[in-house]
């Protein structure tokens, strides 16, 4: 973990309530896709944890949905606004067991961390395949960015006004070597039950500190209680109690 000051490089509205924020600062602690950062926002007491969508040695990109006061303030941040941010939090996805044809399944604001993961898997020589689920056409984002990486992308919408109608589990390919997923818990559960390989699931929980001290975000696993912020947010399929 590292504490640092980041400044807003750009802020872009992707859908009605989803924003892409690029922050400049010291990203040296970010080591894996699926990790998160914890942002201090003036006027609020607790930091706001947001998963990393992408990063390089100068910037980190996060994509977030406005769900409350914190994300609302972030969605209005002017260029060059400075934020005190903790980086390098959480375990992130492991590339080790991906195999040749890993499957990436994202839902809603669970999609962003899979983007950097997809890039890392491509660098490793894997051939990832991507399934992204949204409620409706107006909420779809990042599809073009995934396609630009040259990977097969299937989009599902619950309303059926774009892509394949249904849930992500209605569009899972037959052949894959491992899976990675992030999204709302009902989706994670459906993916868990619909997949026939091992895999990794990224969870969300209300956090106090984000670095393992307060025990606010604990969850029960097959291996005992885990802190989502420290031993997660990514859990192995084998650890999940479903």
């Amino acid at each position: 973990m590292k504490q640092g000051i980041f400044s807003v490089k750009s802020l872009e509205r992707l859908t009605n309530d989803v924003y892409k924020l690029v922050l400049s600062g010291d990203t040296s602690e970010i080591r894996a896709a699926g990790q998160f950062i914890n942002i201090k926002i003036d006027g609020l007491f607790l930091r706001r944890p947001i998963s990393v969508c992408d990063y390089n040695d100068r910037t980190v990109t996060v994509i977030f949905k406005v769900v409350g006061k914190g994300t609302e303030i972030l969605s209005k941040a002017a260029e060059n606004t400075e934020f005190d941010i903790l980086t390098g939090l959480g375990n992130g996805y492991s590339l080790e067991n991906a195999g040749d044809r890993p499957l990436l399944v994202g839902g809603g604001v669970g999609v962003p961390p899979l983007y950097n993961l997809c890039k890392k898997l491509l660098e490793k020589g894997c051939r990832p395949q991507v399934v992204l689920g949204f409620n409706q056409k107006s909420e779809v984002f990042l599809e073009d960015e995934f396609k630009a990486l040259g990977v097969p992308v299937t989009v599902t919408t619950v309303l059926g006004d774009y892509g394949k109608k249904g849930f992500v589990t209605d569009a899972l390919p037959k052949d894959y070597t491992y899976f990675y997923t992030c999204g709302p818990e009902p989706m994670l559960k459906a993916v868990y039950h619909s997949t026939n390989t091992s895999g990794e699931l990224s969870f969300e929980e209300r956090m106090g500190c984000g670095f393992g001290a307060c025990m606010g975000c604990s969850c029960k696993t097959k291996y005992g209680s885990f802190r989502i912020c420290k031993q997660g947010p990514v859990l192995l399929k084998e650890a999940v109690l479903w």
Partner: protein
Amino acid sequence: MVNTNVTLCGESLSNPIIPASGTFGYGREFSELYDLDILGTFSFKGTTLLPRFGNPTPRIAECPDGMLNSVGLQNPGVEKVLSEEIPNIRKIFRKKVMANVGGFSIEEYAAVVKKLSDVPEIGWFEVNISCPNVHSGGMSFGTDPRLAAEVTRAVKAETDKPVIMKLSPNVTDITAIAAACEKAGADGLSLINTLMGLRVNLRTKKPVLHNIKGGFSGPAIKPVALRMVYEVYETVGIPIVGMGGVQSAEDVVEFMLCGATAVGVGAQNLVDPYASKRIIEDLPRVMKKYNIQSLNEIIGGAHHG
């Protein structure tokens, strides 16, 4: 040179700063960030006889200038603390640690203290009779002077180390509990634990916390904590560890003027992992600014007469 030394129940501290129980784990996470030996001491996570998961999540909520938690004494249990955490504390902290213990019966408090009593790394026991997040035990011992005294006596019988009783602010008269603990043999008091609070999510129209209610901490509670430290200082003769919303070296001085011998830093550690370090480093500057040569001399200075 200013002097930041204080003496807490016969044990000397190089400064009065004590990261508060429940915000500092067993020191592991913070030892990766800075040298823990700069601290006066730290109070480790409330430890019970058996392992506890605590309450269901969500168990954290944002508040104006503070937070609610309903963690509910999650801890690995005293046996695992003895086998894994104490050996690690020995590696990361050369000073004596404060052992915070929780319980659901008088016997449990006594049993946990007994198991930890001979651990040389432990300098003080802090007995939590004020956890608002457990349905039996916990806070009920801290809201009844008779029960608070009984826990104090039971724990004192199991150890020669100083026993500090951690008091709840969720009472009509905290001085009555404080006096009962002192009379029962407590060596010190720490206050305040969190205040009972509640928040509602307007989208779901239900409480944010699964447990409905939780403990309110953070800078918003500081005036309440200062008032209680002030009142208890006028009632008892034993040292007080004051805490509640401490964010700065100025806050530390304010608590000491009200009567605290040492000062806990709680929720601030969670939003600023370097908070305790920053406060310690800033203390000499603040002491000079307010013409304080020795912290020991300002304890209770805000009281008349």
